[in-house]
Every structure is written in structure tokens, then in C-alpha cells.
């Protein structure tokens, strides 16, 4: 029987993590049953979606709240009218607000995935309250809210965004086959690191959220015990100058390396002996399953969704945020105990393969789409 494909229009604003998520999700959606199309902001790279979506429309959107949002909403509404998708699916807060505004009165199923609630960011109280109010107001304007982790669902409930039956958890995942076929790691000599030196590293934007400053403090303490250790920050970001200045002040230029922004962070991560993520807050922390697949013993902070990925002493070590002493202690524990390292990383890899495979995410989405359309009749 020649059944008609379900047409889904994805509306997205912020690039970065969300773009990566969509590339891997859409890659594994059944193209025989679903037709995905993309409405994205100018920050995206549409060429990455060629072959996995049927159409791409670029609508200029901005990150800040302002008058241009209404314009963007009008443009999106026009596109919804033009393409008549069965499902409209918005990713991240900004696109969520624009889509729900644009979709008023339309006869389709609308979905929203906040990819980390904006009100959980560490910003001023006023802003947090405003974000929460916007989410509460717009929640009734969509049919389902997809949460990327159990923690996100709980946070929605405690902030009273909507009723529980509107929420659906589809735990995030990474592109396992792609990581398995990754290119060879970079050579340590490229960063000037000796072959045998212990290397502790972190992948993440150099921004307040990922706490690279805490990483540096931790490095100082680890170095006191392991003078030959090297530390690698994989990423660029607004804190880079501040960090470089601090590195220079502490005379750690020779042992702390900042790679700046790169398209292949895992080729650096592959050279780590211990991988860390010291985020102050975290929507999900996709880099953790990646570390796990790379078989890296890891140290992470026990904030937001991270404890749903890492269990302390089982597949990694957890430390409180903003505590360089505890982080250093955990790193030292791993560096000094090869049995522990072995045990954690084996368990971690197994967990990642079982629980954080994006193919499972694609399948769950497929089921959700069909279920929603069936209910709608």
C-alpha cells in the first residue's frame, strides 16, 4: 500500500549543539515514512543537511528578544501555510516561541523541544523569571513537549510549566556508528605533549557554563602531584583571553593547551587519559556519552542531567560544581588507580552503547509522531 509520508517541519534558531542533534537525528529517521524539512536561522550550515531533509528554508532570526521576532514568526507562518506539514517541531527556546506564535490556529500537530530550559541557565533572577513566564504562557500552544532527559522533565514539573501528560522524555543520544568510524586521533606531539605524560582534558565552549576557570584551578592542583601532567581545553569562546592571561600569570603556558574552536574535537579527546566536564549547568552534556564511547575514564559535575548519565563510582566519578579541590582529587584518584580506570571505562562504554545511541532517539521520535497523528485522527 502506498501510504503518504508524514511531513515534519523542524524550526530551529540556535546552531551549535542543536544543529548537531538534528543532523544525527534526521540522518537515522526512516525516510520511507517521514519527510523532514528544515526551517533554520542564518546561523545554521544547510549544507550539512543535504540528502537528509527534503527542503531547507533560511529565515533570519536573532538570539535576543526583539521586534524582529514578530517578523520571523510571520515568515515561519507563511512557510507553514505553504508546505502544510503534518507536524511542526521546534527546537530550543527561541524557535519554540517563534513557532508557537506562527502556528496559532493551524491544523497540525506541534511539538517543542527546549534542549535545556532557558530558566535553568545561570543568569539574573529577573531573566529566569521572565523565561519561566514565557514558557508557561506558550506551553498550552503546543501538543507535546519533548524533554531530552529525565532531569529536564522534573525541572518542567517543579517550575509548573505544564502537566505531566504533555511531557515526553526521549533521552538524547550520539551518533555511535560515526564515532566508531572516527578518524585517527591527533598526535600528542602536535600540541607539544610528550608521549608518556598524563593528559587531562575537557571538551566544551570556553564559557561560564563549562567552567574552564575551575578546570585551570584543578590543573594547578593536579600538577602539584603530577608535575609532568598536561591539560587540554578543546574549544574556543568568550573566556579565551581571560584564560590565556590566567595561564600566563600561573606560568602554565607549557602544560595547558587551548586548541580553540575545532570541527573534530574527538580527535583531541582521544588523546586524553582522563576526560572531565565541570559544567555549572548542563541541559544534557552530549560530550559525556562521547567520552564514554571513546573509553575515557571521566569526572563530571553532579548538576542537572549529568547524574542521569554518570553514576558516581559506577561509570565515572561525580564532583560538586565550582569545586576545583574535589575535581582535582577525583582526577588524582583516577590517575593513581589503573584498576579503577579500567573498570569505569569498560562500564561507561557499555552504558553509552545501550542507552545513548541516537538510532534509539530516531526510533522513539518516529513512534511519537505516528502516535500523535493517530490520536488526532
Amino acid at each position: 500500500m502506498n501510504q503518504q509520508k508524514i511531513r515534519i517541519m523542524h524550526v530551529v534558531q540556535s546552531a551549535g549543539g542543536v544543529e548537531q542533534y538534528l543532523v544525527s537525528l534526521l540522518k537515522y529517521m526512516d525516510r520511507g515514512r517521514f519527510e523532514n524539512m528544515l526551517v533554520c536561522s542564518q546561523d545554521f550550515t544547510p549544507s550539512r543537511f543535504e540528502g537528509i531533509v527534503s527542503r531547507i528554508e533560511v529565515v533570519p532570526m536573532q538570539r535576543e528578544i526583539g521586534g524582529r521576532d514578530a517578523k520571523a514568526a510571520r515568515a515561519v507562518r507563511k512557510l507553514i501555510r505553504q508546505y502544510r506539514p503534518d507536524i511542526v517541531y521546534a527546537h530550543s527556546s527561541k524557535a519554540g516561541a517563534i513557532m508557537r506564535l506562527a502556528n496559532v490556529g493551524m491544523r497540525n500537530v506541534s511539538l517543542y523541544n527546549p534542549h535545556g530550559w532557558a530558566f535553568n541557565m545561570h543568569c539574573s533572577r529577573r531573566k529566569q523569571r521572565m523565561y519561566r513566564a514565557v514558557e508557561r504562557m506558550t506551553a498550552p500552544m503546543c501538543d507535546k513537549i519533548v524533554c531530552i532527559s529525565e532531569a529536564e522533565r522534573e525541572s518542567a514539573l517543579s517550575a509548573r510549566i505544564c502537566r505531566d501528560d504533555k511531557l515526553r522524555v526521549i533521552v538524547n543520544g550520539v551518533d555511535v556508528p560515526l564515532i566508531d568510524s572516527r578518524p585517527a586521533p591527533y598526535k600528542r606531539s602536535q600540541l607539544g605533549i610528550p608521549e608518556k605524560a598524563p593528559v587531562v582534558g575537557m571538551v566544551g565552549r570556553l564559557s561560564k557554563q563549562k567552567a574552564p576557570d575551575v578546570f585551570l584551578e584543578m590543573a594547578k592542583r593536579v600538577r602539584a602531584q603530577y608535575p609532568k601532567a598536561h591539560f587540554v581545553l578543546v574549544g574556543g569562546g568568550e573566556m579565551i583571553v581571560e584564560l590565556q592571561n590566567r595561564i600566563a600569570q600561573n606560568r602554565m603556558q607549557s602544560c595547558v593547551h587551548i586548541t580553540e574552536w575545532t570541527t573534530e574535537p574527538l580527535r583531541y579527546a582521544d588523546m586524553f587519559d582522563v576526560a572531565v566536564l565541570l559544567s555549572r549547568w548542563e541541559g544534557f552534556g552530549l560530550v559525556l556519552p562521547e567520552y564514554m564511547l571513546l573509553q575515557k575514564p571521566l569526572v563530571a559535575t553532579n548538576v542537572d542531567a549529568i547524574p542521569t548519565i554518570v553514576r558516581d563510582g559506577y561509570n565515572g566519578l561525580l564532583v560538586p560544581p565550582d569545586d576545583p579541590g574535589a575535581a582535582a582529587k577525583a582526577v588524582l584518584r583516577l590517575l593513581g588507580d589503573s584498576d579503577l580506570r579500567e573498570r569505569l571505562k569498560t562500564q561507561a562504554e557499555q552504558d553509552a552503547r545501550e542507552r545513548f545511541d541516537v538510532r534509539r532517539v530516531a526510533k522513539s521520535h518516529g513512534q511519537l509522531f505516528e502516535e500523535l497523528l493517530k490520536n488526532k485522527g
Partner: protein
Amino acid sequence: MKVLILTADSNGGYPVPASKGSAVSTLMEQLAEGNNAQRLCDMEIMSFYDEKAFEMAKQYPHITFLWVKPTALHRLLDKCAFNFIRLLKKNEKAVSFKSPFSLLYYIRKAGKRLRVTDADKVILENNIPLARALRKTPFRGQWFYHFHNVPRIDGGCRDVFERTTGFLCVSQFVADRLSAPDSAIGAIPADKTTVFYNCVDTEQFQPMPRDCGELAALRKKLGVADGDRVMIFTGRLTAEKGAEHLLRALQLLPEHYKAVIVGSYHYNADVKSDYQQQLYALAESLKDRVIFTGYVQHDELPLYYNLADVAVLPSMWDEPAGLTNLEAMACGVPVITTNSGGIPEYVGDSVVLERGERLGEEIAERVQALLADSEGYECACRYSRQFVCDRFDKDRYINRFIEALGVF
């Protein structure tokens, strides 16, 4: 979204890709490169034909290039007109009229294209007479002007400017000038302008290790010793660019400070000016502390910047943007510049001096202060590079372009 970019000039017919150089052509090529990689829109670029540019365009298979090849007659007329104007007006502006007939030919072709195009948005690059292309066409999409300079004439096309959707300006300075009551194209309402900053290739322009072989070779070639402090100036040797102020500063600085002056009058053109003679006379007194390199190919510039401890770019006219500042900063070289036109918008917390009598002295003071504190100097180097990478990197140029079009 389909975008048609019209880029033409009357001072030599610079093609895109920038086979013959020129700042505007280079920026347009960067848009093409960005869009070829990201494919945010369907892009068509109409450019003067040049064999090398045609070959270079093959690197961008996702961009459609429409070539305009002026006939031999047009080129002959250009030559005659240029020589005639040079005879009439002995001033330096003659180079603005190097190829007026080619431009007319381009405008005719562009007008024809606009009749049949299915583009949603048309961008006119900088050139005022280009507006004529839009005059008698049935084109009903949006069109935008992208101003790299403050326009000096209206070319009799005010009606076209009135109907223009938006004006992308390379700085707030240019935008303010467009909205000023004395604007040459008629005061443009402020809400019709938006700032679309230029970009720089931060991969081509990047810091190099101090001890690399190429740098050592260049030092040797220019006669720079290891202990020397090097200040660099790049740009045309005209009063507007202010190279003399660097030399005046050099007079006040100790012996081991040297100045490297990169640039000639107008690209490769062989026109010697009075100002240039004066400059040479001033340099005479400083002997081997001033090094004139003559014209340097654009792709060799990063090496020259890396040779320097500090870049001194004391523009004396209201520079719309000042790309040289960006290039130096991208190489991790702190700049000392002047509060002219759009420059302050591009250099962040770098040293920005007021133009005035004391400029030479102030440059000397600030250079010494900057180099005296080695930790502070290192910070300034890192800051310079990072500031440019964050805001003006060519990788995000196309994204900012689409965003700017979305303002209207």
C-alpha cells in the same frame, strides 16, 4: 532565498573572485566562499570577466557566476578616457575613472539580467551608477545597497535610492552619514540602514611563531636586527593614510625602533605623487630606520604584520572601516590608530588617538608604553587576535549577511 549580487566599479573593473585584488572583491569572494560551504541561499554573482577569476570561480561550484566581458571597443574607450582625464586633472582621483565605459557596459548587462531574474533579493555593491541598472526594469523584489564608502554623488538616481529596501553599511559611521541631512544620495531614514561589518580571513592572517624560517628570511631581507622594535604601516602612501605621522613618531623614539612602510600609491599603478616625495624626504633624515617595501602582494601581508611588534595606522580621513586594522589584529599585532570614521567600531579597546598636532608625539608615547610592559603587551596581542576572531571572522560573514538582509 535567491540572492543576486551586482558588483562593479569604474576604477579598473575588479572581478569576483578577487583575482586582481581590491577590498570589495575580496569581501564578495568571502561571501561566495561562505555560501558555497554553508549554502544558506542560492547565490548569483555578476562580475567582470577575467581569465584568472573564471578559473578561481571553479572552487565555488554552488555559486552561479554571471560574467560580463566588456568589448575591445569599451576597453579602448576606457583607456582614452583615463589618459584624457589624467591630462586634464593632474590630481590623484584620476584612477576613479579608469574604466567608466566598462561600467556602462556592465550596467546595461545588469539591467537585462534584472528583467529576467527570479532572485528575491538583489544586492548592489557600493557603486552609485549601478543604480541605473534598476531604473527601467520591471524587477519587483527587494533590493539593497551595500556601502563600503560614504557615497559622494547620487548619479541622478535618487528615485532608485528612495525605493531601496535597505542599506547595508560597513560601519555605524557610514550609516549615520547616509541618514545625515547632507547625504549625497538624499537623507536615508535611519531605519532603512543596518550595520553589516566587514570580515577578515583569520586563517590567512594569523600569528606566526617568532622563530619561523620565513620570518627570519624577511628580517634579513629588510635589514631588521633581532633587538629591533618594528612598527609597521600598510596602505597607500597618501596624506589620508597618514604614514608621515609614523615617521614623526619615529624621530622621537630611540635608535632601535624601526618603521616598515608597506604600500605604494594605488595598487600597482605607476603614479608618483608630491606627498610621496615629501615622505621620502622625511625618511631620508631617519636613514636606515625606515624601510620602504613598495607594493606587497596581499597574500604576503601576514608575514609582514608578523614581523612587527605594533601596527601604526594613523588614518587622517574618515575611513569607513579600516580593514588594515583588522588584518594586523588578526595577526595578533596590537594596533595604534586614530579616531576616524568607522575605525573605532572595528578595533575594540585598542589604542585610538585623536587626530591633531600632537599625533606623532602621542604615537611615540603609546608605542613605548605598550612595549615597556611585556606582560601587558602579551595581553594586548592576544586580545587583538581574539577580538577580531570573535566579531569579524570570515567564517561567519555569510551568516551575518543573511541576518542583515533579514532586518528589513
